[in-house]
């Protein structure tokens, strides 16, 4: 330390007579400088008033501390990435039983229709890819995600949270769909699984332009139209889009959508809420 506090300043500091900025500089210097700390200690032991104030301060501090052994409130769990992933998942609608139950019911209903119905409609293949699309639509930025207004103002609430929510929707609905599809006797799962992936990624890609909700609605209508267009041609037994031949095309759609999402990632910074004022309740 090349400079030291004048004794007058230290006395002023002891007496509480300096202005805030001076007090802060004194404290900043004291943390660095042992010589001035020692001088302050000497001044304070010599000064009766200062000594009393110091004693009172310690007594007040001791009184405010919890008694030894008293129950301290539990601390927040350690800050790990696992904890982060768990919390971000738990916030989404996937963590709600009502939501999971709704998805399961839709899939089971489609499976039952497929198993019982003798018509040519591939109920299960039609419905299964729509479930994750609608799941993503309700889990990000929709009215079901109550704190979306606050989330919209956070740096982590953009594409990252959307991908976490999307992944959680896919991970939750795919096993249910696989079991339901298997039990219904519907054919190979690969075409509808790939269709699920392609439609979900396309929802995010299109959603970066028109919003996730509108994108999901548009793609759902489009999907139903594509599947049912097969019935215009009586020769086909299965809509082309749900056959093994369509698989490379579905993979291509998914890949293109993934590229679009990556290129337009900044657009997701403003997607969570509409910029209009929403009237809640």
């Amino acid at each position, binding site marked *: 330390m090349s400079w030291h506090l004048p004794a007058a300043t230290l006395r002023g500091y002891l007496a509480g007579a300096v202005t805030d900025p001076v007090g802060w500089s004194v404290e900043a210097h004291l943390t660095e400088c042992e010589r001035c700390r020692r001088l302050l200690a000497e001044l304070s032991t010599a000064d009766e008033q200062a000594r009393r104030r110091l004693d009172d301060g310690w007594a007040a501090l001791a009184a405010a501390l919890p008694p030894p052994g008293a129950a301290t*409130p*539990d*601390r*927040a*769990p*350690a*800050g*790990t*990435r696992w*904890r*982060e992933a768990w*919390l*971000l998942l*738990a*916030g989404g609608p996937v963590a709600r039983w009502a939501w999971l139950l709704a998805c399961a019911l839709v899939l089971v209903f489609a499976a039952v229709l497929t198993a019982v119905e003798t018509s040519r409609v591939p109920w299960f293949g039609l419905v299964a890819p729509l479930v994750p699309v609608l799941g993503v639509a309700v889990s990000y930025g929709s009215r079901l*995600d*109550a*704190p*979306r*207004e*606050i*989330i*919209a*103002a*956070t*740096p*982590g*609430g953009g594409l990252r*949270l959307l991908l976490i929510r999307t992944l959680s929707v896919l991970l939750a609905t795919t096993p249910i769909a696989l079991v339901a599809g298997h039990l219904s006797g519907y054919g190979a799962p690969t075409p509808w699984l790939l269709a699920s992936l392609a439609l979900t990624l396309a929802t995010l890609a299109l959603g970066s332009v028109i919003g996730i909700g509108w994108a999901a609605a548009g793609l759902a209508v489009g999907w139903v139209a594509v599947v049912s267009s097969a019935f215009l041609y009586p020769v086909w037994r299965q809509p082309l889009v749900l056959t093994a031949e369509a698989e490379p095309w579905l993979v291509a759609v998914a890949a293109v959508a993934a590229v679009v999402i990556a290129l337009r990632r*900044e657009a997701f*910074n*403003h997607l969570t*809420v509409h*910029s*209009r*004022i929403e009237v*809640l*309740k």
Partner: protein
Amino acid sequence: MTSSILLGTHVEVSDLVVRYGRRTALRELDLTLDTGVHGLLGPNGAGKTTLIRVLATVASPKYGRVSLLGQDIRDHRALREIRRRLGYLPQQFGYYPRFTVREFVEYFAWLKELPPASVPAAVDRAIERVGLLDRADEKLKRLSGGMLRRVGIAQAIVNDPDLLLLDEPTAGLDPEQRVEFRELLREIGVDACVLVSTHLVEDVAAACSHVTLLDQGRVVFRGTPDELAAAGDGNSGGDAPIERGYTAILRAARQGAEA
């Protein structure tokens, strides 16, 4: 927190225009704010919520320049940086009813990208500052309205924001809590820029160092609470001096607009 020291203004807005369809919510608004507690006053529909939403980077302006913490909000990289240093409590805020107080505040600590190691301490400190540490493990659905409001404030301050935006934060707080809350605001306002919208004029008089009065999407007054009180005259309605100042300035602004 090791946030960089900010030189210059926290909020700099020029020629801001926000429209919802045909309705113009903010018209050519200019505003600069620095550290301190700033009160945002104005009648219903004056544009207070819209202004706060623009500053929270939630609503996008139609025209105009908005610079927060020294950076333009249109720059995507800067936006991320700004949002890390932002605290925002909307007027009506939704929550996850099955989350505990601690989980809810922690949720936003993660979304605000705090360093993982500092999350637990930051969460507990924020909950302590709003006086809810003894209820930290209670589920949100079991809390009263005033407590929920305090949870909302805790999530807003969990990242020690440099810019804190609070839209009607005192709604639902009882008088004692309001006094404590003003104390907290003054404490935060020493290093940060705090903007509080309110319709309770006495909150402004007690807690704010500066007042901005909005009417019909324009700034019609800027100054200290004392200056606002001094603007009142014998003819204006209101019980407290600051209320009389408020009504006098609104009346003058409207007469000016008609003329």
